[in-house]
């Protein structure tokens, strides 16, 4: 009697194991949170130093059009106008997403609604392959194929926003497509059945039922693609020309936040204005990444309510 009571009262091996498992997984998540917070703190503290320590005004930074942190402008302040890069990043991202979205959704519809077998056997592996190609390869192809093509078509040097947008379009296409496929697949089968039973054609079913109910998911896919395009550095740097000029058209050299960052980081000294202002660019990138993240969550929530 006492024995069994004791047995019941003390922790069994299984429950101890569970506790250990809980502790380990908690430690893992705590570590990740710690790393993320450290990165946030590091980038933010460095990025804000431009404004607190070096006395650059936030408005000059965000709206100035001349980027040359090493020299002093007419107002006696360093030339740290980041608008050309901010504009470059946004234009490239939006263009790439605008071109990629129809292709991606079309491909996703084909793979889920029209020909699932071909989709699964041929398209799926192809798309997975595209995801795995390193960005330097995309950049190199851009440099040796897209740039000369643009040069021969539009004249000029061939380096510019349009070349970058094309390279990014190819880079984000697989991401957006595979996420769109998942979304379309998750549309319940009985939606389609009900629509067809009401006499709708396949096209009507796809257009009015499947795409409608999948809209939040598709938007999330596009935003994910945009986030990737916004943060891509190497491939863009190779084809955009990296001139810190306000983009006036699509075929002259421009720059993005990432291209200026990667080009100049090694040439500056930690703690100087030239270095801090690069961290400020990194901070913008980080804030945008957070923004894209929040946007996808918000879209997800909105979609769930419908």
């Amino acid at each position, binding site marked *: 009697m006492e024995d069994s009571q004791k047995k019941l009262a003390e922790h069994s091996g299984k429950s101890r194991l569970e506790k250990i498992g809980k502790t380990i997984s908690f430690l893992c998540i705590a570590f990740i949170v710690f790393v993320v917070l450290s990165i946030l703190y590091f980038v933010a503290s460095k990025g804000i130093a431009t404004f607190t320590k070096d006395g650059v005004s936030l408005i000059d930074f965000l709206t100035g059009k001349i980027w040359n942190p090493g020299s002093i402008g007419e107002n006696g302040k360093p030339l740290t106008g980041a608008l050309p890069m901010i504009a470059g990043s946004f234009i490239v991202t939006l263009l790439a997403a605008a071109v990629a979205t129809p292709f991606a959704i079309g491909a996703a519809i084909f793979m889920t609604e029209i020909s699932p077998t071909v989709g699964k056997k041929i398209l799926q592996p192809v798309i997975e392959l595209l995801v795995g190609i390193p960005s330097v390869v995309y950049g190199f192809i851009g*440099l040796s194929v897209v740039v000369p093509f643009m040069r021969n078509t539009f004249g000029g040097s061939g380096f510019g926003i349009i070349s970058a947008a094309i390279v990014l379009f190819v880079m984000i296409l697989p991401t957006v497509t595979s996420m769109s496929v998942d979304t379309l697949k998750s549309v319940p089968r009985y939606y389609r059945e009900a629509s067809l039973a009401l006499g709708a054609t396949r096209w009507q079913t796809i257009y009015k039922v499947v795409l409608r109910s999948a809209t939040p998911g598709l938007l999330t896919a596009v935003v994910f693609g945009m986030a990737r395009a916004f943060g891509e550095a190497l491939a863009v740097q190779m084809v955009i020309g990296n001139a810190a000029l306000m983009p006036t058209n699509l075929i002259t050299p421009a720059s993005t936040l990432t291209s200026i960052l990667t080009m100049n980081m090694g040439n500056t000294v930690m703690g100087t204005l*030239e270095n801090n202002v690069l961290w400020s660019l990194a901070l913008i990138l980080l804030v945008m990444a957070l923004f894209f993240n929040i946007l996808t969550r918000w879209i997800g929530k909105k979609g769930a309510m419908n």
Partner: protein
Amino acid sequence: MKFNRYNKLAIAFISTIFLAACSPLEGEESITAVGSSALQPLVEAAGEQYGSENFGKFINVQGGGSGTGLGQIAADAVDIGNSDIFAEEKSGIDASKLVDHRVAVVGITPIVTPEVGVTDISLENLSKIFTGEITNWKELGGKNLPITVLNRSSGSGTRATFDRWVLTEGSKSIVTQEQESSGTVRQIVASTPGTISYVAFSYVDDTVKALSIDGVKPTDKNVKKNKWIIWSYEHMYTNGEPVGLTKDFLDYILSDEVQNTLIGALGYIPTNQMEFERDAKGMTTEVLKKTEQKSD
């Protein structure tokens, strides 16, 4: 209980790794050199050669750019900081504590796409191209082809040297395309009609055309005589006078053995063959070589 055993094992394993990393085997020694990517191949090659001749001594070489090299050595975080430019020229660096070791010289030459139809240019016109005053090759007697100016990223050592010796006093380069590495620059110049840029001598090949300036050809010989003025030192900085392995390695790089073989083979010019020298302010003076002093 089962877990505890694994736990102990894991801790033992991890700590072994850490300890192994922290305390090198007896007799082994290593130093780290960080910085300039233009100097990196030389230091790597020399370090490898040094390591094979001196058992148990390791030279770790990392890139990162001249700014990184100078910043790290000023903070005393590494043993050697590699730089393409004088520490005095870089803002934010306290150069007073740093000791300069000039291990090599590089000549920098303007390069163009072969079909522009120009092979010689005056220094003044070269400056005008980079400041945006001359925009077509026909103004220089070449083809009717617009000039595309391609710069290295601001703050790179090659750019700093080129700007300093080519651009007329007080003028600034136009805002234009920039590229991070000399290899990419060469590729773009080779493939984009009408492009002009600049690289170190060792990067010039058949795909691009190196311009002569005022009739002077970009050759090692002309650099040594200072007839070709666009050149700079490759610096290896130490924080304070070097000691121990650092001193030994720097002596090795500056030894005749390395200077006369490796440095030339990698496309640099040995410092000891220069007939002129420069200081951080850009003052160039003639040096009397030891052999010449003897004959005097």
